[in-house]
């Protein structure tokens, strides 16, 4: 068995998270050593540094094989291209082309990449169940058998893919590790633990290449156990469902959770609720800030379309159109009166000729674009369910013809204007007659009509309840969008004062006024859309009352757990410190069980509701021993139904003993409590 991690970054690029980092060989050494990796690949974004690669390869020889690679940005998704180290020169040339194309376009065209890799015998691994996802339609472009692996984001996705008989690709999970110096950071002791095992003796690139062709050759743990993966550099096994961490104080539970978080936090889909975090979240200021942030997000999402309309309106220059109309009428009248005295220059027909209107009406372009999007969509099966591809193609062809005609007309008019305007200007210079001011009535019409539509839109916008939710069966939140009626509401929306009588102005005049005075008001143009409505969120308990401190904590926790659908992993550290048992039992346990259907869950706890009644899939028991001043940490693990938990060194402990000791205080305390309950039963 070989441990492989074929996705490692050694150079900062603009696609990597900020801040910039410098490559740290020590960090890479530590990553390889902590995880005991046998094979790695260097895969920076759209760049390959041959010198750096050679130096890394030399340094890690012979304990770890290092393959040259690159992470290529396609229009949709990322894809790893990994080469045989014996073909370094050809791979370097290939990478130079990728770099050049990326600098030109910010992505590599699918077809070009297919062409570039066709003779390379490269190991090609698309982001498959990992963002940014490479769509299946792109993968198919490479042809059958060229791509046989897909990268996944975590163990759960790995297991699902491995079990899915319809899925042909071999799942692979790698660290996406950034080799940067973190010696100043507390978490530097932690190592990123994401890799897979490759069964068989993979001593060279070609063997790795061939082994990855079969799903049966990859595993998440040394023992090849199903649905179980390694954490903490392989020292602990964990379930891809619901894990409970137990152990005495300072035995390493939080350390283990931190470690898992570090391995997965790059994926941005990990929720980590730290110890006491919920309590902190309920201090008055913090609670308000958190709710404000949530409100802001909801408000922004709701007004997304309106914001772009306001931004569009702010780019209209109605005032200028009206000034041109004024100039036109004045000069037209003067011109008419002066006709009798006109000279040779003003007699020229072109002197009074009007340029073509400047309005560009792209009537068919938008439709054509829409049809193109439908035709190129990765959801072609869904689309074809309702619209035949043949019909779409015919519509596209017709639109293309019409669009071409419209384009030609605009082109010709533009060319005529190019000739006409300079001649008119020259005639104006030479004549004593007044030239008629240029005035495009359609431009004025367009601007006026936009203003009319905007005013009509804002006046028609209604107060609305945009969200009405029951949180955890006991809290009720209503989100209302209400028209701003008072200065106080306006000030509060912008968190600023001094907007004057802006509320008396019509909608367009209001945004125009705010735009003209944005420096004075200290606001950004992009915020002006907030000048009309505010969001009011009302949260009450089951008795319609305001929330107490404890209820705020419950509300905060449930809100967090409700929004976990987007997460692949949830880590919770001793949440019981903030809540009572009935609440945990009634509202949290079921919720966490459901979450574990979709995400990997780790809970650290001393509470028997969360530790036992939750019916976990897996236990991890952490402990330490002091020996002559030094401390050694241990972790026992195993399925929740197993009689014993064991360490990596096969030390064993009875599951029941651990649970009774840490969840019930001890056998004696458990029996005593049982007796007390029996006595007071009647």
């Amino acid at each position: 068995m070989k441990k492989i991690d074929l996705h490692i970054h050694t150079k900062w690029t603009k696609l990597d998270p900020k801040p910039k980092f410098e490559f740290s060989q020590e960090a890479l050494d530590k990553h390889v050593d902590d995880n005991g990796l046998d094979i790695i690949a260097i895969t920076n974004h759209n760049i390959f540094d041959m010198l750096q690669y050679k130096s890394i390869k030399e340094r890690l020889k012979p304990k770890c094989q290092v393959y040259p690679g690159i992470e290529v940005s396609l229009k949709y998704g990322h894809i790893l291209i990994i080469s045989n180290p014996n073909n370094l020169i050809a791979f370097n040339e290939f990478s130079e082309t990728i770099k050049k194309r990326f600098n030109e376009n910010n992505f590599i065209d699918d077809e070009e990449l297919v062409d570039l890799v066709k003779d390379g015998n490269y190991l090609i691994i698309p982001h498959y169940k990992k963002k940014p996802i490479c769509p299946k339609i792109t993968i198919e472009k490479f042809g059958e058998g060229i791509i046989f692996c897909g990268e996944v984001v975590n163990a759960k996705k790995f297991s699902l893919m491995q079990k899915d008989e319809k899925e042909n690709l071999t799942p692979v999970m790698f660290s996406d590790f950034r080799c940067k110096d973190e010696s100043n950071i507390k978490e530097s002791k932690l190592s990123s633990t994401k890799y897979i095992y490759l069964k068989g003796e993979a001593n060279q690139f070609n063997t790795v290449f061939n082994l990855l062709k079969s799903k049966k050759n990859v595993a998440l743990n040394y023992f090849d156990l199903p649905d179980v993966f390694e954490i903490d550099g392989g020292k602990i096994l964990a379930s891809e469902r619901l894990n409970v961490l137990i152990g005495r104080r300072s035995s390493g539970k939080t350390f283990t959770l931190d470690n898992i978080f570090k391995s997965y936090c790059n994926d941005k889909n990990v929720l980590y609720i730290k110890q006491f975090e919920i309590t902190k979240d309920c201090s008055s200021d913090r609670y308000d800030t958190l709710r404000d942030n949530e409100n802001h997000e909801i408000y922004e999402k709701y007004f997304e379309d309106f914001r772009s309309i306001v931004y569009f309106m702010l780019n209209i220059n109605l005032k200028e159109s009206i000034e041109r109309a004024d100039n036109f009428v004045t000069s037209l009248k003067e011109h008419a009166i002066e006709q009798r005295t006109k000279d040779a220059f003003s007699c020229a027909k072109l002197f009074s000729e009007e340029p073509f209107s400047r309005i560009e009406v792209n009537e068919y372009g938008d439709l054509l674009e829409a049809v193109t999007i439908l035709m190129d969509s990765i959801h072609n099966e869904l689309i074809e369910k309702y619209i035949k591809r043949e019909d779409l193609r015919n519509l596209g062809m017709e639109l293309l013809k019409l669009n071409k005609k419209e384009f030609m007309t605009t082109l010709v008019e533009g060319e005529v204007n190019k000739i006409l305007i300079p001649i008119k200007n020259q005639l104006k210079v030479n004549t004593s007659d007044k030239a008629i001011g240029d005035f495009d009535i359609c431009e004025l019409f367009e601007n006026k009509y936009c203003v009319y539509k905007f005013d009509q839109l804002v006046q028609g916008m209604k107060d609305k309840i945009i969200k009405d939710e029951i949180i955890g069966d006991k809290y009720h939140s209503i989100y209302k969008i209400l028209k701003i009626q008072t200065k106080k509401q306006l000030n509060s929306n912008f968190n600023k004062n001094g907007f004057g009588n802006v509320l008396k102005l019509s909608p367009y005049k209001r945004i125009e006024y705010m735009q003209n005075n944005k420096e004075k008001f200290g606001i950004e143009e992009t915020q002006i859309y907030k000048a009309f409505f505010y969001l009011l969120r009302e949260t009450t308990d089951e008795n319609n009352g305001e929330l107490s401190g404890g209820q705020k904590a419950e509300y905060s926790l449930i809100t967090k757990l409700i929004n976990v659908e987007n997460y692949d992993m949830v880590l919770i550290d001793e949440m019981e410190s903030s809540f009572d048992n009935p609440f945990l039992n009634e509202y949290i346990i079921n919720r966490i069980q459901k979450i574990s259907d979709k995400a990997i869950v780790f809970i650290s706890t001393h509470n028997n509701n969360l530790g036992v009644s939750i019916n976990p899939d897996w236990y991890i028991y952490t402990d330490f021993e002091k020996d002559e001043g030094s401390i050694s940490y241990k972790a026992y693990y195993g399925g929740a139904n197993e009689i014993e938990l064991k360490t990596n060194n096969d030390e064993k402990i009875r599951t029941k003993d651990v649970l009774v000791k840490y969840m019930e205080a001890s056998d004696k305390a458990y029996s005593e409590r049982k007796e007390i309950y029996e006595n007071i039963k009647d």
Partner: protein
Amino acid sequence: MKILKIKDSKGYFSLNGENYFEIDNITKDNLVEIVNLAFDNDFEYDENVEEVKNEAQIIIYRKILEKCKDLVSRKESIKSKINNKFSAAEEKYTK
């Protein structure tokens, strides 16, 4: 609505189809008002400019007629473009 009319060898404009004013009295505000009228009204106009006797009125009438014709020929496509732009927002926020 008839916004430009030729009668008794004189050119006139109107803002309501009932009251008419001589074309050489047109102002910027009248022109802006004509543009506003175009939102919801179909325009009609006399085109027999040769019947106007006053030289200055001919020039003004001809130019304004030219502008109105330009507007009439393009206003529906402009309106449709803008209506499209606003339709999603109208659907979302006003219903």
